């Protein structure tokens, strides 16, 4: 298997291109994804290879994009739609929640909706309150939708392949700040099963379950804490629906301590779900410190860059939380 360093953004494009070369049912649609290459340039060059039939520019209507994708999926295609910013998923929500998520169930399996909704999430680009949110918990709440949050170029390629192959609608969250990160990525196609967490770093003193960009912040914190003799295990669930409970529970059983970190607003965030899973599990009896959650502050993401950083967990916050949690080791 030949690997080379490519960016997260390139890995997303490569996953789509590989799949489109193999499977004529796969096509992509979205706003300005043609010659312009999409808001972040993910699809740049694809219209040249696959033509405007399979790389379709759409009107500025997320509801229409989602509706068209669902309709084509029901009639046998495997569409990948792109929303410029995940904040606009609210407009596509009726289609996704009341159609995409329900159809297969309501028709007793006679219809299926094999589609992927790709969309960049998160703050850090100075895009302010309406273009910086992390709303994955909303989608995770809906039975019938799968929710993926890749954190590395390697993961994003394998997970996107799995999402395209899945016969259910998958919400595929890409993080804006991760687009430029690089990783060793195999040239050929490969698949990372949905619902399989990855232990990004092994440790014995505390488990940090982190998603998306927070995986990287947690790893940075872990390196710092290693100097203090604190051994941190970083678990990346990679998909929050389905959630790999087993890996998380086993990790907590091993370390006896849990910190959950995500960028989304802590209140009502998916971290609460992860904490509950652990509290209800056999890992409960192994907990030797109160569980901590780190999440975004309950404020709209500020435009001011200093405040924008302060609104979400940063490396020093994670370090402090770990120190507090392992204090009575």
């Amino acid at each position, binding site marked *: 298997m030949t690997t080379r360093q490519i960016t997260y953004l390139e890995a997303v494009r490569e996953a789509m291109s590989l799949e489109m070369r193999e499977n004529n049912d796969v096509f992509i649609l979205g706003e300005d994804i043609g010659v312009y290459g999409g808001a972040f340039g993910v699809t740049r060059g694809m219209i040249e290879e696959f033509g405007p039939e399979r790389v379709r520019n759409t009107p500025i209507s997320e509801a229409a994009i989602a509706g068209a994708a669902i309709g084509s999926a029901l009639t046998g295609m495997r569409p990948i739609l792109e929303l410029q910013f995940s904040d606009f998923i609210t407009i596509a929500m009726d289609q996704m929640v009341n159609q995409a998520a329900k159809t297969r169930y309501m028709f007793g399996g006679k219809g299926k909706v094999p589609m992927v909704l790709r969309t960049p999430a998160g703050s850090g680009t100075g895009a302010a309150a309406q273009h910086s949110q992390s709303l994955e918990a909303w989608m995770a709440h809906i039975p019938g939708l799968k929710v993926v949050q890749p954190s590395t170029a390697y993961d994003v390629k394998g997970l996107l392949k799995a999402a395209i192959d899945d016969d259910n609608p998958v919400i595929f969250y890409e993080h804006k700040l991760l687009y430029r990160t690089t990783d060793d990525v195999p040239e050929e196609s490969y698949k990372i099963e949905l619902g399989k967490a990855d232990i990004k770093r092994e440790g014995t003193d505390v488990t940090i379950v982190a998603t998306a960009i927070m995986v990287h912040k947690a790893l940075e914190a872990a390196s710092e804490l290693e100097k203090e003799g604190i051994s941190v295990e970083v678990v990346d669930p990679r998909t929050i629906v389905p959630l790999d409970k087993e890996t998380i529970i086993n990790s907590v059983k091993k370390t006896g301590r849990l910190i959950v970190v995500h960028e989304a607003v802590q209140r009502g965030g998916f971290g609460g779900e992860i904490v509950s899973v652990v509290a209800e599990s056999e890992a409960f*009896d*192994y*907990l030797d410190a109160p569980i901590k959650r780190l999440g975004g502050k309950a404020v709209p993401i500020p435009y001011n860059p200093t405040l924008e950083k302060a609104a979400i967990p940063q490396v020093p916050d994670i370090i402090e939380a770990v120190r507090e949690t392992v*204090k*009575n080791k």
Partner: protein
Amino acid sequence: MAKEIFMPKLSSTMAVGTLLQWFKEEGETVEIGEPLFEIMTDKINIEVEAYDQGVLLKKYFDVDAEVPVNQIIGYIGQAGDKVPDSSPGMTGEEGTTEEKEEATVSEQQELIPTASHTQEGEKPRATPAARRIARTNNLELVFIDGSGPYGRVHKKDVIAHLEAKTSIPKATPLARKIAQTEKVELSSVTGSGVNGKIVKDDVVSAAVPKEAVALQEPATKRRKMSGMRKVIADRMAQSAYTAPHVTLTSEVEMTKVKELRAALLPVIEKQTGFRVSFTDILVKAVGAALVRHPQVNVSIDGDEIVQHSEINIGLAVSVQDGLMVPVIKDVVSKGLAELTIDAKDVGKRARENKLLPDQMRGSTFTVSNLGMYAVDAFTPIINQPESAILGVGRIQDKPVAINGMLEIRPMMTLSLSFDHRALDGAPAAAFLTELKQILENPFELLV
């Protein structure tokens, strides 16, 4: 919130109270109206009832402690309520500087999580992991020192406890507490509770043999002067050493008093159900004499002489292991029947230790009657802050010269001790003479 228990002020002169006993241990539940502790004031033993219900959270003072009135001596509240480690001072105070400092300190202590045993009555704090290990090893978390915030027991604490293999006997917190105060080694006590858990009664019965050993000590016994004995000792010494006592004696012919008593006995008995005594008549006579000689009805307060407007007579009553002086108020306005009722009432209450606080204070002159014994005269010690006391001897038929003739008459000696700081010999003698005249001609009482 925990409610204060404080030393009550039972009389105007009461400055301190001595704790005689606690009826409850820390951790026991208390109902409103239940006796909580017993105190001795300068005049009385009294059981103090609980004003609040809940759990006795804290006792700041032990038996025999002398505590200023209004000092907080404990707390009643709900299990788990926080109370200060030492008495925070007087009840109702806004707080002295010192107190405020203390409060700040304890607040800081709350902010900085402390490692300590589980607080009385609280469930132990422990992490799930610590609980699991304790459970599998049949360990009680209450006995494990927690190293976490607020004494939270962590996994490592349980493991350390296991490794130390300290076989701490199982006991209830109450039993543990009593064992500590009684200095009973818990490991030597056999528990009668569930799974051999040591309960209160086990410790109490284990503490008994120790007292038995004490009884076998040499014949000369010593016992601590406690409670009333101590109060009497202090007050008598204080009076004897501060007031220069002068005692005047005078023989009184009691023929007419005897006639009077004989005549009134059936009348008063019919009216009140009580038999009028010589003491009752004496009280009446003393009242009349004090009206005419108010200089005897005084107190010394610092460098002032307080002239009392009321005439309240204290009656010395012998009680078990001591002496009480209950008070009959305003004797001048009362008839003999009423005085008889009052005297019988306070006498009975004194002997049963049931005097009301109001029956213990305010006397301005005391009568001490030893007439039932073979005593003719004595030198009574003044019951301060009064300035005089009347000692009464027995009535005995004696030969006396009447108009040059030797006659046998019932005679009684009165001994008047007075505080020479407050009054001099002449007015005291005048008072005693007046009293003698009244008793020898009791019809004067009708005037």
